[in-house]
């Protein structure tokens, strides 16, 4: 419990910063898209003239920008990118930070098992991500209701979208941890986190463009494609299961690797 608290305290500033960015992003984009929704017919017409590959790449294929959820699904896709970077960031640095900043000799010489350290850190990161998640929920509901301009929308698909966030975050958190333990040394967290988050996004975007199904299979951006969820009012279950399996494998693998790992020393 002491590690959990300590980790949470050290991470709190970052959680608050990320949460503010997510809220600001959701408000600004929902507002911007709502103001052009009045000209949605024009926008839809314009989009129809775009090359289809481009529309797929930006997750705009089959999107009706005149509806509340149609434009929100566009907002949500980029919210996903933000959430992915945050979760990947926390995952990559979760245990690697101790080795990089050479505090491993302090923490691991304490009477505590590595499994306990990992669990405490994992739960602490998850708490932080859940705060950002809650902020995303609240901002989404407030922003949509503020800028819907009297248009009606279904609540269920929106809830499904927002419910997917926790699994989505877990994917990037757990894969991040696993990667940080597979490499010998994480010198800097940002390149790894950006690489993981944008890499997955690009796989989803370009995978769709090239019609290559295999690439899409590994990216949660495809597993939780907002377009699909809005249009079908349901998750693409077989794909969601892939995410769940990856999360489980990554977490189990991380525990095993961390328990066996040689901590780097200063010298």
């Amino acid at each position, binding site marked *: 419990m002491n590690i959990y608290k*300590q980790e949470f305290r050290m991470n709190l500033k970052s959680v608050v910063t990320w949460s503010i960015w997510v809220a600001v992003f959701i408000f600004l984009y929902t507002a911007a898209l709502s103001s052009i929704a009045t000209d949605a017919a024009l926008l839809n017409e314009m989009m129809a003239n775009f090359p289809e590959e481009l529309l797929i790449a930006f997750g705009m294929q089959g999107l009706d920008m005149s509806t509340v959820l149609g434009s929100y699904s566009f907002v949500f896709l980029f919210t996903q990118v933000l959430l992915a970077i945050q979760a990947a960031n926390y995952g990559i640095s979760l245990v690697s930070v101790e080795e990089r900043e050479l505090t491993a000799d*302090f923490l691991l*010489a*304490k*009477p*505590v098992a590595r499994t306990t350290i990992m669990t405490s850190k994992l739960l602490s990161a998850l708490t932080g991500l859940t705060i950002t998640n809650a902020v995303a929920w609240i901002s989404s509901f407030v922003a949509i209701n503020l800028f819907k301009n009297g248009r009606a929308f279904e609540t269920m698909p929106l809830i499904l979208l927002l419910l997917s966030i926790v699994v989505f975050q877990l994917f990037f958190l757990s894969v991040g941890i696993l990667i940080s333990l597979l490499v010998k040394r994480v010198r800097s967290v940002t390149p790894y986190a950006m690489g993981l988050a944008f890499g997955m996004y690009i796989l989803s975007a370009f995978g769709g463009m090239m019609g290559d199904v295999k690439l899409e299979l590994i990216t949660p951006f495809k597993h939780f494609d907002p377009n699909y969820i809005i249009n079908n009012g349901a998750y693409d279950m077989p794909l969601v299961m892939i995410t769940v399996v990856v999360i489980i494998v990554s977490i189990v693998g991380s525990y095993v690797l961390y328990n066996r790992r040689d901590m780097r020393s*200063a*010298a």
Partner: protein
Amino acid sequence: MSIIEVNKLTKYYGKARGIVDVSFKVEEGEIFGFIGPNGAGKSTTIRLFLSLIYPTSGDSKIFGQDAIQHGPELRQQIGYLPSEVFYYERMKVLELLKYSASFYDRDCTQRMYELADIMELDLKRRIDDLSYGNKKKVGIVQGLLHQPKLIVLDEPTAGLDPLMQRNFFQLIREENERGATVFFSSHILGEVQRMCNRVAIIKEGSVIRIEDIKTMQKDNYKKIRVMGNGLETSRFEADGVTNMIQENGAVTFFYKGDINVVTKMISAQELADVTIEEPTLEEIFMHYYE
């Protein structure tokens, strides 16, 4: 039961040698010195029996129990001061010490303040504002505040000014008198000589000798210097004579063995002067590293 029992411990980092077949025992109440130059494997050995890293082969026991299997509970009774001290930089000293104390079963508050007082540590400052020496003090306090039965010190005095070193050695002696066993790793022989009962010498990853410090200094080696006209090294060649140097009409050598043999050898010469003294640990040490 030995407090530390290291058995054929071997560690390779990939192909790079860490330590090879290191074995020794540290008994209860000892101050055990562990000396060797940088890169000899001192920290590797310590980090192995603390389970910060895992051995390629061999094993280590602490308080008679396997260091890896029982690591967490064993560490309740171990205080460790790493050679390089880095702590969570954004924390204040007091926060870090309280965090450290929170890992132990007992209440460490009183001892924490006592130690901070002895080491003249300012508890209100942020860790990243501290000098190297002050960080070292934080390291000392966090390593001792739970009154451990085994104290492991890895190059503890680097960065401490002489006055603080004296306080620190006094502190370690008191802990030792209280019953704590001390494992003291250093490359500074003077301090090992002052503090330790026994010493293990590690060279290029292998322990080459474990000896009582008094035996090592007194009973074994003599440093002999003879002066006279036309002295030649060949006249002093005998079993037990090493490190013979001839310069400025003087011959200096180390001798280990029956003292009568060497005195006869010396008395057979026409001498201007002779000194026979105990070599410092430094000199013995240099000798092992030839």
